């Protein structure tokens, strides 16, 4: 099952649309509540990242009966040092984003914690793609 969502730069109001819709689908599939929560938390972080740091992007979700694959691909500044960005508390968020309660430097580490597979690829000046997988 394939689902697609568009995220727009700075559109914090709509952050969580993709993760809420995915949540409902997984509940219908009788996926264990703990796993649903991990998926939703990871996807929400990725959505917020694309909204806060990039110039928007796309969320692609593929659900099978035994796993979910999520790809959040943004057009944006990219991440120069992915290893550094994976560290808790490291953030390049602008002050106005932090004022909104985002950008605490927990995004990528939080995704890592909640998914079974995480792959981040990035090109500076072009964009970042976050691929995540969670097994049911």
């Amino acid at each position, binding site marked *: 099952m394939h689902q697609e969502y568009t995220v727009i730069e700075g559109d914090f109001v709509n952050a*969580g649309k993709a*993760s809420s819709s995915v949540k409902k689908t997984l*509940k*219908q*599939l*009788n996926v264990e509540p703990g796993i649903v929560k991990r998926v939703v938390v990871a996807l*929400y972080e990725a959505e917020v990242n694309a909204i806060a740091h990039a110039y928007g992007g796309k969320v692609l979700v593929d659900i099978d009966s035994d796993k979910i694959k999520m790809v959040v691909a943004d057009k944006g500044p990219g991440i120069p040092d992915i290893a550094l960005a994976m560290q808790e508390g490291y953030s390049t968020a602008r002050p106005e984003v932090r004022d909104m309660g985002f950008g605490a430097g927990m995004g990528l580490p939080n995704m890592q914690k909640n998914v079974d597979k995480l792959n981040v690829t990035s090109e500076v000046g072009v964009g970042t793609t976050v691929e995540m997988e969670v097994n049911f």
Partner: protein
Amino acid sequence: MFVHALKINEKKCIGCMRCLKACPTEAIRITGGKAYFQEHRCIDCGKCHETCPVDAIYINQDDFEMVHQFPHSVALIPAVFLGQFPEEIRVSRIYNALEDLGFRHVFEVESAANIYAEAKEHFARENPDIRPLISSFCPAIVRLIQIKYPSLVENITPIKAPLDISAIYCLQELQNRGIPREEIGLFYVTPCAAKIAAVKAPVGEKRSIIDGVINMDSLFNRTYRKIKEQGKNYIPKQSRTINLSSDAILSTLTNGERRICLAKNSYSIDGIQNVMDFLDKLENDEVEDVEFLELRACDQSCAGALLSYENRFLCGARMYARARKAAERERNGEVPREREMDKMKDYLLENSRVDAVQPRSMFVLDKDRSKAFEKMERINKLKAKLPQIDCGLCGAPTCESFAGDVVINRIGLSRCIFYQRHLERKNDITRQECLAAMNAVWGDDRMKEE
């Protein structure tokens, strides 16, 4: 398996769709021109009851005559019951009238509010990893979480409601006086449908000790009539003072639990839509570090309950007035009556726990995930064919729920009038079949010829 207090009177129901649209869990369908509950989805919140224009939705209650069958009948009344009466009628007068109606004992269930709060605190201390804790006070909320937010069931404090703790106390107290169980009748006067469902089919308990349930609005009628009959010069058989603490009086109102709980970061939220909006965010981890949630299905909590005759704000204001007087008495050193319960506190705390609340998700399409997956793909395909305007003419509240009904309950797709036109255009359906589909939802005699 699912016991509900809300019932639909088929004779009165006009199949008008108001309840169909009002139900927060999409538990209502229209078939044959009448509304029906999908029982596994109903949480007894009573939104349908509020919106019904012909009073077709009613709340089942026990026969009042049952009260006379027990030499020691106990009226377990909620504090909001007293908030129904005009202010010039004193609390003791209402107690007397209830006794004259046949109750041997009158007991306000909020008397157990402090023991309930303490039981919650014990649980909070023993389980520091479970946060936020969600109050078990409102039974409609407990059921909402079971069916719609299964990941949050473990956050519900597995503690009996004050009503049940009060019932245990009354029973024990009377038995201690040597009165046999069969002579004791415990009657709960309920302000809402969810509490009845909770008594008849308690969550996390095998059965409740309550013997009967009486609707608050009907008892208000009886009591108020009695007081009017007795007139101004009535002299009560016994005079007394009833001093419930201010904390106890306010505990059923919004913020009533939160104001006496020890949690720093806590919220009190009333109104079922407000509760759902918050739980959606909580489930996504979008709100952090919340310690305690007081959630109530009704706007203004129990003052706005279904069977509250009085306006919710007037009822609330009267309760605040009573609480202010109680607070003044406490400051003057008077000991509230409910302190009598303290002598049984350890016993009550021990018996206030229930088993952990279990999820019973309304969303699950099939227990077998691959079958659920297959059903979902069929639902999604169907959904794409539907107009997405949620008109309700198929008898389901939304196009999405209709698609689910078609796949799961094998309802004919031609009940959708848009799809029907589409079939007609292709000559895939006869006029007779169209009429049959329409009648299946709206009944045979809706458009009688003159």
